[in-house]
C-alpha cells in the first residue's frame, strides 16, 4: 500500500473511475493540460484525452449547467469548481436544477454528477478562496454533501460519490491536500455516503466535526486527555448531509455532552442543525448545552487574520471544558 496525500488519493480515484467507467468525465477551468490549479486532475488529460478531460471557458454556470445536461443524457460528469467562493455564479443551476431534476421529473431524468470543490481556509489564500459554504447545500433539498478529512476516506468517498445516482457536492479540505500521508490501497474501494466515522472512542464528551476541523479536534482531544483527563469521543461526519444521525445520537446519549466544530460562520451553520437534531432526539440525555466552536459571523478575513477566525485546538479545548464544567 502506498503512502499518499489527500490530493493524490483524489487523483487516483479519478483515474480509477475513468478507467472503469467510460461515462465518467471531468470538466472545469484549467483541469486539462494544466492538471488543475491544485494538480488534482494531473495526468488525466494525457491518459484520457481532451474529450474526457475538458478545459472549459471561464464560466461556472456554464460548467454546472452543461454537466446537468450531460448527466441527464447518461454521462457521469465530475465538474470541478476551482474554489469554494466560485460556486456562487453557478448557484442557480445547482439549486433550481441539479438538486431537483429527479424530483421534478419523477425520476425520468436524474443528475448523477459529482461537483468537486476545494474547500475552506487555512492556506493563506486570497479573498473568496477560503469559504466554507456547506450550509447552502445542506439546506437545499436534493444534494448529498461530502467532505473527507483524510486520504483514505477521500478516495473511497469520491468513488462512492461518482457512483451515486444523485448529485453530490464533494468538498475537498484544501488545507489538508498535502498536510499528511496515509496508507491508501491501490485498488477500488468505497467509503459509503451517509456514514460517519468514530475517529476516537471516549466517554465524557462527544466532539462532532468534519474536514480540516477533524484534525484540529483530534489535537484538542489529545490535549483534553493529557491536560484534564477528559475522554473525548470524536466523530468525523464525512457526509455532512444527509448526516449519520444514529452515530451522533448514540454517542451523545452515551456522553451526555457535545461540542460541534466547524469553520463556516456560526449562524445557521450545520452546527445549528446538529444541535437541533440532538435537542429533538436526545435532549434528556444532555447534561449541558451543546457548544458550537465555529467561524464567526463575518466575512472570512484576509489571510493575516485567518488564524483568529478558524477554530484551532485551543478553541475546541475551551469548548470541551465549557461543556464539561457546565
Amino acid at each position, binding site marked *: 500500500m502506498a503512502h499518499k496525500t489527500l490530493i493524490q488519493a483524489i487523483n487516483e480515484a479519478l483515474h480509477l473511475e475513468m478507467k472503469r467507467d467510460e461515462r465518467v468525465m471531468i470538466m472545469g477551468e484549467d483541469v486539462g493540460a494544466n492538471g488543475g490549479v491544485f494538480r488534482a486532475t494531473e495526468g488525466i488529460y494525457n491518459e484520457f484525452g481532451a474529450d474526457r478531460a475538458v478545459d472549459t471557458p471561464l464560466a461556472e454556470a456554464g460548467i454546472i449547467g452543461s454537466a446537468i445536461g450531460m448527466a441527464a443524457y447518461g454521462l457521469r460528469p465530475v465538474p470541478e469548481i476551482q474554489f469554494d*467562493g466560485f460556486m*456562487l*455564479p453557478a*448557484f*442557480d443551476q*445547482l*439549486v*433550481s436544477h441539479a*438538486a*431537483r431534476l429527479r*424530483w*421534478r421529473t419523477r425520476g425520468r431524468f436524474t443528475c448523477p454528477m459529482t461537483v468537486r470543490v476545494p474547500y475552506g481556509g487555512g492556506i493563506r489564500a486570497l*479573498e*473568496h478562496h477560503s469559504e466554507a459554504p456547506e*450550509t*447552502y447545500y*445542506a*439546506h*437545499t*433539498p*436534493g444534494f448529498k454533501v461530502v467532505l473527507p478529512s483524510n486520504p483514505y476516506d477521500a478516495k473511497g468517498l469520491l468513488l462512492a460519490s461518482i457512483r451515486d445516482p444523485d448529485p453530490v457536492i464533494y468538498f475537498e479540505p484544501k488545507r489538508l491536500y498535502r498536510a499528511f500521508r496515509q496508507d491508501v490501497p491501490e485498488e477500488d474501494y468505497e467509503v459509503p455516503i451517509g456514514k460517519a466515522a468514530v475517529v476516537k472512542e471516549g466517554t465524557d464528551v462527544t466532539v462532532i466535526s468534519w474536514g480540516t476541523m477533524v484534525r484540529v479536534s483530534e489535537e484538542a482531544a489529545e490535549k483534553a486527555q493529557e491536560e484534564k483527563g477528559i475522554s473525548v469521543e470524536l466523530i468525523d461526519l464525512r457526509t455532512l*448531509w444527509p448526516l449519520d444521525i444514529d452515530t451522533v445520537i448514540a454517542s451523545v446519549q452515551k456522553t451526555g455532552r457535545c461540542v460541534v466544530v466547524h469553520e*463556516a*460562520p456560526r*449562524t*445557521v*451553520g*450545520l*452546527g*445549528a*442543525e446538529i*444541535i*437541533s437534531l440532538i*435537542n*429533538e432526539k436526545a*435532549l434528556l440525555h444532555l447534561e*449541558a*448545552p*451543546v457548544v*458550537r466552536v465555529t467561524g*464567526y*459571523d*463575518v*466575512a472570512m478575513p484576509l489571510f493575516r487574520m485567518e488564524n483568529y477566525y478558524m477554530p484551532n485546538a485551543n478553541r475546541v479545548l475551551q469548548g470541551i471544558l465549557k461543556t464539561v464544567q457546565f
Partner: protein
Amino acid sequence: MPHLTLIQAVNDALHLAMKHDDRVVVLGEDVGENGGVFRATEGLHDTFGEDRVVDTPLAEGAILGAAIGMAAYGIRPIPEIQFTGFMPMVFDHMVSHASRLRWRTRGRFTCPLVLRAPYGSGIHAPEHHSESHEAYYMHTPGLKVVVPSNPYDAKGLLISAIKDPNPVLFFEPKRIYRAIRQEVPEEIYEIPLGKAAVVNEGTDVTVITFGSMTHMAKEAITRASEQGISAELIDLRTVWPLDIDTISTSVAKTGRCVIVQEAPRAASFSSEILTLIHEKVFDSLQAPVERVAGFDTPMPYYRMENYYLPNANRILAGINNVLNF
C-alpha cells in the same frame, strides 16, 4: 386612517420614501409602467418618472449588481426580484459583494440597498415561485432579513429598511398581500429593525414565527386557548439579526417552544432559533423545542402545497407535543 392591504402598505411606503429622499430609485422587471406583477410599484412610474422607476432587462444578477454600484455611488436603490425562486441568480452578488462591501473596504464604500421580493408560498403559483430562502441569507454575514406579517408593520419596516445603512432583504409574504386590511397611518413612520412583536402574551408555551405563518400560528393558539393552553406568540418581523432578548425572556418564562417556518427544515431558520434557545436558556427548557416546518424536499407543485406548508393543525399538534412531553 386608510384601511390598506399589505401590498398597498408596501406601495405607500415606496411612494413616501421616494418623495422624502430623491436618492431612492426603484428598479426591476416590470416595475415601471406595469407597476410590478403584484402591483407593488403601482403609480411610482407616473409620479417619479422613468429615471427613478426603472424597467430593467431580464437579468437578476445585473439588477442586484447594478444596484450595488448605485448604492456605493450614493443613491438608494430598491431592486425588486420578481419571485424568490429567482433569487439564486443574484446569489453571487449578494454573498460576494453586497453583504461584504462595507467590511471589505473598511467602511469606505457601503451598500445601503433594499432588495424586495415576494416571498413564500400559498398562492398556487407555478414552480420556482414559492420558495422561502431566508436561511441562505441568515447564514451569510452582513445581511439583514425582514419579513412583515401585516400591513402596518410592512410599511414601517420597509421605511426603516430603506433608511438602514446596510443591505436589507425585504421579503413580502405574497400569500397575505391582499388577505388582510389594517389601519395604516398616512404619514411616514418606522418600525425598528431587530425588534420582534409579542402578538399574544401567554405562559405555557412560546410560539415563534414570522410572515404569513404568524396568521397560521394565531389560529393555532386561539384553538389552543380553547383547550386551556396559554400560548405566547412572537412575530419576529426581523428574521436576522433577530431580537434575542424577546425570545429568551419568553422561553425562560414558558419553558416550552414551537418554531414555525415554511422553509425546508435542514440547516434553516428554525435550526438557528432552536440552537440559540438551547444556548441561552437551556436550564429553563422543560421539553425539546419543536419545529413545525416545510419538508426537506423541493416545494411541491400547487396541488400538494398544503401538505407541505405548516397549518394551524400542525402547529397545534406541535404545541401539544411540547406540552405533553
